């Protein structure tokens, strides 16, 4: 039976946190994304109602239940992806010297926004204050969606906006793996092989064997395989769409698709770290749990990236050498092309991850829990600073605007409200 509009609303409301706003997506200003969604649904032969959410942590979701699949876009997530791509472009143009100036304030600002979304006001205030202190440019980042989206080229923008949607639509496809474990193979390589490679490259302090055991204990292979499947579906869909629709060569289409996935992976990893920070920060003996959770999350992202790069090589070979038999030798000719795409921004990614890790550690050690006396004093002191510093207030206001809160929202009252609500239920 078809699901009524009222029932659909109930399902969307249940999937989002309290206070989130949402509406049926009309793709105003994004006709290309609408076209992509329609095309992708018909290619995959799936159905999904599409909604958009705001005034909540930026999240792209697929919700499935009898009668309807619902894809929920995030108004803010698109612009976060564009901010990531702009940051990457800025660092590549200005050289590594700019890294120290540009990366910490950008990372801290994103963290502040995620922490606001997760309703951890003292963490958000602390991160926002540090972002302001470290920012070289006196102007706050632009919170206006259309201007931000227009600031990168069309192919990059299309890939950034469509990759996450394609990934979620990919979740509607049935899983085809015979084996559900870290020994399952994707394009001929087992997931455990990617983990071992990552451990070897990182050179772990504790030795590879215990870390591998930790990975086997903590990673849910069925979930990881589903994510990899969805990534691979998204890669192919987005690259084909960008090539056909925007007349971009296959190689460039793959490059922008991989770049979109890279941006998405980093932002989601950081968002997850912020959630772990909220859960564990300031609590005795929880540092190890925070570090382990963060490591597991990072490892899964590495495995996903490894699978994606391998598939990109296979796709490029299939498209560029379509008249040849797709043997290992044929595919291997295209591996260096994809490797080069990956290597281009390796330094940037490493620097960004280092900054994100350092700032998360700093937050973990600096922000006390809300229920301790020092927690209240810590929050009040930061709130006073915001009261006395108009730049700090403006930054907070722009964060809320970017997330889609109404323009009339007073950021300080909102933060005070969140702090009060932490004491018990809300």
């Amino acid at each position, binding site marked *: 039976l078809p699901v009524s509009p009222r029932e659909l609303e109930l399902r969307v409301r*249940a*999937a989002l946190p309290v206070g989130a706003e949402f509406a049926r997506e009309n793709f105003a200003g994004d006709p290309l994304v609408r076209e992509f969604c329609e095309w992708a649904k018909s290619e995959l032969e799936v159905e999904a109602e599409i909604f958009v959410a705001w005034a909540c942590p930026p*999240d792209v979701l697929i*919700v*499935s239940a009898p009668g309807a699949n619902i894809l929920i876009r995030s108004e803010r997530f698109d612009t976060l992806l564009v901010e990531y791509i702009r940051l990457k472009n800025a660092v590549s143009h200005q050289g590594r010297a700019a890294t120290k100036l540009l990366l910490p304030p950008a990372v801290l600002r994103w963290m502040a926004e995620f922490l606001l979304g997760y309703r951890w006001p003292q963490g958000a205030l602390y991160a926002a204050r540090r972002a302001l202190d470290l920012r070289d440019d006196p102007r706050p980042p632009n919170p206006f969606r259309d201007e931000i989206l227009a600031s990168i080229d069309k192919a990059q923008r299309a890939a950034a906006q469509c990759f996450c949607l394609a990934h979620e639509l990919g979740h509607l496809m049935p899983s085809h793996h015979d084996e559900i474990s870290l020994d399952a193979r994707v394009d001929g390589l087992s997931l455990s092989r990617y983990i071992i490679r990552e451990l070897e490259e990182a050179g772990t302090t504790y030795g590879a064997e215990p870390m591998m055991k930790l990975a086997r204990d903590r990673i849910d292979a069925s*979930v990881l395989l589903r994510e990899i499947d969805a990534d691979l579906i998204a890669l192919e869909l987005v690259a084909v769409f960008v090539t056909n629709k925007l007349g971009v060569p296959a190689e460039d289409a793959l490059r922008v698709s991989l770049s979109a996935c890279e941006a998405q992976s980093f932002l989601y990893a950081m968002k997850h770290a912020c959630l772990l920070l909220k859960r564990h920060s300031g609590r005795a003996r929880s540092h190890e749990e925070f570090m382990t959770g963060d490591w597991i*999350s990072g490892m899964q992202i590495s495995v996903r990236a490894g699978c994606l790069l391998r598939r990109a090589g296979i796709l490029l070979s299939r498209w560029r050498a379509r008249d040849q038999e797709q043997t290992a030798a044929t595919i291997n000719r295209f591996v260096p092309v994809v490797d080069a795409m990956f290597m281009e921004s390796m330094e940037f990614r490493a620097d960004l991850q280092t900054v994100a890790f350092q700032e998360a550690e700093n937050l973990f050690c600096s922000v006390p829990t809300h229920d301790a006396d020092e927690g209240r004093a810590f929050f009040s002191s930061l709130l006073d600073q915001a009261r006395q510093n108009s730049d700090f207030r403006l930054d907070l206001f722009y964060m809320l605007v970017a997330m889609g809160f109404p323009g009339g929202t007073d950021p300080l009252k909102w933060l005070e409200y969140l702090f009060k609500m932490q004491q018990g*239920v809300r």
Partner: protein
Amino acid sequence: VRLVEVMLETDEATSNQFRADLSTITREEVLVQKRENLNGMVDFIAILQAASPIVVAALPLIMERVRQKKVRRLRFGDFEVENPSEDQVRILWERYLAANPDRKA
């Protein structure tokens, strides 16, 4: 008597068991939906829309899951709590009942 929206975020087995148990007691239908995001978080959300006396009858079933630490998020209308304790569920329900039903979230 008010119509209450109850949302229970948990794992697949707990959601399905909650649906089966509630249906035995109240004959109310519970919808279970799966939610996935970009980084592999998979949650199951049990949704019940029912009159408040029926929700009262469902409370022991909710409490049982809370005691087992299976509930990641619980919502009555627009009152919500994450990883709740039994006390927090009781307070949440009392606050929900005491609030003006027409208030804004």
